[in-house]
């Protein structure tokens, strides 16, 4: 496998992990909204909290994490951009 192919393999698996986490917090948990609401977080019913803040915070953190991780992958294979590309 060439350098480019290896880089793309790693990129793809990072994308998959990212989208799995995304799926859990954007779709999966809301299948169980009713059950979730019997639990609470900070005193808010859990399903309400997740839709109002929880999932949104997860998304923000997830994208920052993804961006850093992808930068590491690029670095590993020598694809980091030069300043004046």
């Amino acid at each position, binding site marked *: 496998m060439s350098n*480019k192919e290896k880089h793309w393999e790693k*990129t793809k698996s990072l994308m998959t992990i990212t989208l799995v986490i995304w799926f859990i917090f954007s779709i999966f948990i809301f299948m169980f909204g009713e059950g979730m609401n019997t639990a609470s977080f900070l005193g808010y019913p859990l399903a309400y909290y997740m839709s109002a803040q929880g999932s949104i915070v997860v998304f923000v953190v997830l*994208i920052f994490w993804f961006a850093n991780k992808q930068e590491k992958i690029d670095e590993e294979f020598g694809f980091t951009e030069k300043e004046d590309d």
Partner: protein
Amino acid sequence: MAKEKFINQGSFIQNLPKIYGIYTGGFLAFILMMAVAESAGMTAKTIGIMFVGFTVCIYALIGYLSRTVQVDAYYVAGRQVPTVFNGMATAADWMSGASFVAMAGGIYFGGYTYMAFLVGWTGGYVLVSSLLAPYLRKFGCYTVPDFIGTRYGGNFARFAAVCVLSLASFTYVTAQINATGTIASRALGIPFELGVWIGLCSILLCSMLGGMRAVTWTQVAQYIVLIIAYLVPIFWMSNKNGFGIFPHLMLADEVARLGELEAQFGLVKNAAADIKAAGVPGGLKSISLPHAGVLSGGMHAWKFISLAICMMVGTASLPHILMRYFTTPSVKAARKSVAWSLFFIALLYTSAPMLATLSKLQLMDPTLATGIIGKPIAEVMQIEWVNAWTNVKQAFIADFNGDGILQLNEWFMRGDVVVLSTPEVAGLPYVISGLVAAGGMAAAMSTADGLVLAIANALSHDIYFKIIDPKADVRKRLLVARSLLVVIGACGAYIASMRITSILGAVAWAFDFAMSGLFFPLVLGVWWKRATREGAIAGMLAGLGSGTAYLIYVGPKFMAQTPWLGIDHLRFGIIGAVVCLIVMVVVSLNTDEPDRATKKLVDECRVPSGKTILGKQH
């Protein structure tokens, strides 16, 4: 030309934090000044005019200072917008009049069921960052159809993409111009139709001379105004009433209290016949859904999820958002910039439910001075703000049971009014209402700017320059781009002035149109080398066609048939996108593989380093 040079220099970019720091300070000083003026006896109307007028003038000034005669500055802001600032600009671009004015109102009436919009309008950014933004940035395109046209080749693919883009963005832009009209007419005390045209003029002032560059720097300024305008009333109300110093973490008791009050007053859904008989003006609603409670049953869960899916996938296909990531200096910066965008968006979105909670509680809790539910109607009618809003038919009281007491299901209000009226309801000084009006104006204007520019750029770059006249010189290209901007803005304003849609219905449609026609052609263009030109064209046309057909089939204002599996007119993108995917894959597999050059192109765009695929000036 001296100013042109000033803004082009690297020092301008380096000084951005300072410049916007001073700007923010100046704006806060202006608010204080207005507060002083209010206590000195300045009338509410003058304050409103000052707020809207002052901020709009600032945006116009920025637009003027950012004027340009260069193609890459006009289309992609010279690709030098730093990550954090691009994040702010995207956030303003993103948060429309609907987010600012209608979202808290939607939660106010819809409670948890409506909050699928919150999840959808934020979750989509994960798709943008992991699937699209960095790759499109590496491509170096000016517009979204530019990517489609180059990746798949041929003018027809480019043309189909322009069609989807125009339809989606235009649906969206009329709603925004509508919102600027509503706010301008209220704040300036002028008729709605005139407000729409004034709104349009201010939108064009920001974008015409400097294109993307001007829009970028005004959007940053608009973000600052809108976020201050959104957060100040929330913190103020929460602290004034002793609900909690930091409302986002401390409103649990209030949410629980709303549940108690719902049980006490009862959630009654009024019969359509009753509403009609009482003469409730169209578009006004009463609270009939639980605030934090989840309705039981799989269908409700599916409705929540399907709405979230449409908004997420739609987010990742809306060209005015994707094109913001063409302006960053590098691929790396594009990724980071998506993260910052969502951070800035989250500041407002996580606040919307808190605003809805606070304003709802203030109306519903009879133990609070501001409460109106459960009080005698005659008494309620004496309240100044109730009077003001009922007079303009934005609020309504219908005494269904004839007991003279205002019940929860007897109080009607327009969703958009919730945010705009909250400061008055809570008895905050008028300065806050003026601030909110300025914020709403900023939100609607910034989105309208981005949208009008997205359409005009696609038409001028992809249709005019790439298809009609590839030999046109820079002057002619920019002239065409600017003329189109005016024409499209005017069309949007004309349609908005006819008032055909409510703000939110149309906004959700834009997402559905975009996801029907663009999501898979964009994503597969990067992630699936086997995707062919014929596949992409067939996918775009079939997706958009089937989505639109389904919308006409279920749309309440069209054929109004029973939706299939709960996929109603807000969710028709699900049909369109699925059809698009299937058609695109089937047709791609049955046509010749893309040639080696195309495959190389895709390989290139997957690697962040190296030159962009399309030249710096193309």
